[in-house]
């Protein structure tokens, strides 16, 4: 869905590529045995290697290689059997070695793709350029002291996967859907927890604009956008800025820009007075990383079902619409919850409940799927009670609220509170007779052609039976009595 922006001089389109830094799920760091936990006291998770003490050397964590390969396979990407770690040299207070160990010319993962499920039901393919492993830097705190910055190296050396997309996105929404989909895949794989608030998933956007049909123009890189909403705002703002610049006769310069979430603007990081020249070269402390085809195929054979496959299966097995299936599979826990509810039951009904009332209650109560207000088993039992006519759909909503309140099984609640549907035709006939007798005037009106009153009679019967009368039966008997 190419979004066209009207400018003074005609139409423009956006060209967006994303670089996502995803923290690899591992106990220890990429090249040291220090822990990776979030939120610990400063410098408490720092080894001598992470602090770049003289003479310290890196040794790679096998789990990080494993996670990178799995992620590459999850992105349907080429796994490079030989990759090389290189040093990216620059000075910064939270970069203890004076270089970041990264991968440059030969990354561990090459080209792949991500399929986006757009809200209108269409799909879009976004190419993956590469995925490489690299070290995270430490953290600088600038607000602790009037003249000093504080340096905490706990993050220093934590493994990151830098996932670089091709410039395949054309609007901010696509960018957001891309990040969400990538996050979903990473979480399915368990290779990154995807927590944007804690910085486990960070996003830089490369944005340029062009006239439709043109080649690529100069791009700006927007750093550190830490929510999907900000990502869209930042891209929107940046594209507009570039278009205005061009239309005023100016030129876009290739630069790094920072998104200011308070002002909703991007601004140039001109404070970086030194031109960047990273002087990459292969890290002489490490040898090339070689993988065997057997290693890669064993990982491939062991991959979990990923969102795209699950979505396809949900459409096939549960006859869901692609859109419903896409919503359900975005989070593995949601998908699992749904499958527990749907197994052996009416899938459409299950889907409506999970994405409807259940999701609404979750939102209202601020609960998570890991701590649901109603268990999948109970929700399944509720659907069973509807299916075997023990309760009506209307009563089911009432029972569901009671389940949320009490945590009790639906069968127990229905029993205790006498909510069972009345299917005894004698009782229903009696209730109908009482209504017809009490409203003889309306009966005459109906019989003289005021059809619309049928609904009124049904309502009265239901009201008098506390909603428990089987609606189909009520309809049947009522019609017979009125016509008869």
């Amino acid at each position, binding site marked *: 869905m190419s979004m066209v922006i009207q400018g003074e001089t005609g139409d423009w389109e956006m060209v967006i590529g994303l670089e996502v830094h995803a923290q690899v799920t*591992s*106990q*220890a760091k990429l090249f*040291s*045995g*220090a*822990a990776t936990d979030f939120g610990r*006291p*400063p*410098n*408490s*998770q*720092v*080894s*001598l*290697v*992470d*602090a770049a003490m003289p003479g310290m050397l890196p*040794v*790679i*964590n*096998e*789990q*990080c*290689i494993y996670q990178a390969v799995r992620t590459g396979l999850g992105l349907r990407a080429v796994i490079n059997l030989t990759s*090389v770690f290189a040093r990216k040299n620059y*000075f910064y*207070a939270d970069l203890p070695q004076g270089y970041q160990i990264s991968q440059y010319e030969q990354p561990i993962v090459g080209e792949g793709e991500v399929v986006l499920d757009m809200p209108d039901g269409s799909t879009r393919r976004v190419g993956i350029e590469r995925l490489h492993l690299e070290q995270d830097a430490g953290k*600088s*705190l*600038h607000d*602790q*002291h*009037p*003249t*000093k*910055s*504080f*340096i*905490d*190296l706990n993050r220093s050396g934590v493994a990151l996967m830098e996932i670089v997309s091709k410039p395949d996105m054309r609007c901010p929404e696509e960018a957001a859907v891309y990040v969400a989909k990538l996050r979903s895949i990473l979480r399915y794989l368990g290779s990154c927890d995807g927590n944007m608030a804690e910085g486990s998933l960070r996003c830089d956007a490369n944005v340029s604009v062009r006239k439709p049909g043109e080649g690529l123009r100069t791009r700006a890189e927007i750093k550190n956008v830490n929510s999907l909403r900000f990502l869209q705002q930042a891209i929107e703002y940046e594209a507009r800025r570039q278009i205005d610049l061009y239309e005023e006769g100016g030129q876009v310069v290739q630069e790094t820009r*920072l998104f200011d979430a308070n002002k909703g603007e991007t601004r140039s*990081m001109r*404070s970086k007075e*030194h031109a960047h*020249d990273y*002087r990459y070269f*292969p890290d*002489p402390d*490490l*040898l*090339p*990383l*070689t993988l065997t085809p057997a290693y890669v195929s064993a990982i491939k054979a062991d991959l979990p079902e990923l969102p795209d496959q699950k979505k396809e299966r949900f459409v096939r097995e549960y006859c869901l619409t692609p859109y419903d299936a896409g919503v359900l599979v975005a989070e593995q826990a949601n998908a699992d919850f749904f499958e527990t509810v749907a197994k052996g039951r009416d899938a459409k009904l299950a889907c409506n409940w999970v994405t409807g009332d259940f999701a609404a209650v979750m939102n209202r109560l601020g609960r998570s799927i890991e701590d649901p207000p109603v268990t999948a088993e109970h929700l399944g039992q509720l659907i069973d009670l509807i299916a075997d006519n023990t309760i009506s759909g209307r009563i089911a909503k009432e029972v569901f609220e009671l389940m949320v309140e009490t945590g009790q099984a639906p069968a127990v609640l229905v029993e205790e509170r006498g909510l069972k549907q009345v299917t005894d035709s004698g009782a229903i006939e009696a209730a109908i007779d009482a209504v017809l007798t009490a409203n003889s005037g309306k009966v005459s009106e109906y019989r003289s052609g005021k059809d619309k009153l049928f609904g009124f009679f049904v309502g009265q019967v239901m009201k008098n039976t506390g909603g428990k009368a089987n609606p189909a039966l009520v309809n049947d008997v009522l019609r017979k009595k009125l016509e008869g």
Partner: protein
Amino acid sequence: MSLDKVAVKNIASLARIEVRDEDLDGLAVELSNILRFVEQLAEVNTDGIAPMTSVAHLELPRRSDQVNDGGYVERVLANAPEQQDGFFLVPKVVE
């Protein structure tokens, strides 16, 4: 390659080594001499020769994913020129 003052200043800046302006000319001559010396490599035909990645013809060894290091703030900070509350301190960085 002959380096001029500007080039030397730029290299020094990349390397974060302060060089006094009056030393730039001398350094330019010195570094240019060295570059001229190493540039003799240009006369060797290296077509089709792979650059050496390591003299050690080994597999990259891997560590297991175990936490067995860190947890010693005092050792990390022991030689710090300036520290407070468990942090290293540097002149304020403005972004």
